[in-house]
């Protein structure tokens, strides 16, 4: 699966986890910084991409990534090889996302009240500008959703994950994921039409 130039492997089943990965997991659980660094190097792009899409703010996303990897050794004690390490990292990010999403939402609301627009890079052609606007529009619309629906939308639609994988990450049944996604899309469509673009 190719997401935004990143190749994400599908969820690795337990049988595929190599001895190396098990050793790595054990080392991470014992808070070995080198092991955490190794996991970081392997998975930080996926975690960061998800964090940025979910939070909609690069700085807040970096904070979330930081939090995920700092919390990893402790969280790893509960890792049972039932999902891939990447999926596990994304689920940690989901669990830590709430206050980052809240603060990013607040910041965006304040910025829009002040009619503040961050300056884009000078090299943007028209298309890039349009893409930026759309992404920003969707992020603002996402701010109106409850966190659960937001997570479902980002994982399913933006990251193109299967509902099964999302169910694994969020720890809810697939049916619930689909319901959340349905409500999220409905609400987002309404929000986009209200913006007068739809």
């Amino acid at each position, binding site marked *: 699966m190719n997401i*935004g130039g990143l190749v994400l492997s599908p969820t690795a089943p337990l049988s595929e986890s190599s001895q190396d990965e098990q050793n790595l997991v054990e080392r991470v659980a014992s808070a070995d910084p080198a092991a955490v660094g190794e996991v970081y190097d392997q998975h930080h792009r996926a975690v*960061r*991409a998800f964090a940025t899409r979910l939070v909609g703010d690069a700085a807040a996303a970096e904070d979330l990534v930081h939090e995920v990897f700092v919390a990893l050794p402790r969280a790893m004690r509960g890792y049972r090889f039932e999902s891939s390490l990447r999926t596990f990292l994304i689920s940690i990010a989901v669990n830590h996302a709430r206050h980052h999403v809240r603060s990013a939402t607040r910041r965006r609301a304040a910025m829009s009240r002040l009619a503040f627009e961050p300056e884009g890079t000078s090299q943007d052609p028209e298309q890039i500008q349009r*893409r930026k606007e*759309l992404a920003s529009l*969707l992020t603002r619309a996402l701010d109106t959703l409850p966190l659960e629906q937001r997570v479902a939308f980002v994982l399913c639609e*933006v990251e193109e994950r299967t509902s099964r994988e999302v169910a694994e990450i969020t720890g809810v049944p697939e049916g619930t994921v689909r319901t959340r996604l349905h409500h999220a899309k409905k609400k987002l*469509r309404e929000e986009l039409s209200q913006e007068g673009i739809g």
Partner: protein
Amino acid sequence: MSDDLLKAATRALREESETDDADGRFTRARVMASLHQGKVKRRTRLAFILPLAACLAAGTAWGSATGRLPALFHALSEAVSLSSKPAEPKPHIANGTVKKAPADESAPPTPAVQPAAEPKPEPEAKPELKTEPPKAEVAASARPTPSGASSAAFQDADGDLYRLAHEAHFASHDYGRALAGWDAYLKAAPGGRFATEARYNRAICLLRLGRDAEARQALEPFASGKLGYRQNEARELLDELSR
């Protein structure tokens, strides 16, 4: 239309959130620093806690072996009980009726001396006083022996005087005898540890004996807050007396 827009916006968000490695390297350094800090904190905590735990264990073992542990425990519990006195119950005054006699927190030890003679109450017009000390107070005053901490504090004659007065006041409700007891205690230990409580209890005895003028005089320092003890109750009693 909005469906297409949603798809386009989703694609835009996906593409916009591609990250570059510069951020990644910076955050990696932050993660490593945080993990290192966490490790240092854990080590520091261990470096403090382990010796403390060892000292505590050794001290406890030594205390048990030498039989000093109970004494230490009592001293400690006394210090704790002194630093955190329980909230005092308020006397309930309604329609000229005082429903509660203030109690002293500490129950005195076994009597060793007899109380002094009871003074006669002055015949004066007074509001009707009904005393119903709460059960807890009665239980406290009827306690046969105090805790080890209290007994340590009452190993002298002053303590005996205090205990006798307390018993007459809160157990026997013999206010004449209690008044004499409080006077005797205050004479023996005017600056004693429980002198303030004794003065207050003395004022209550005067009140119950109908010696309103003296009671008013005795309550005034409390009501003014000079003594920092039962100010509200004293004020309420004075108000009641002045009706």
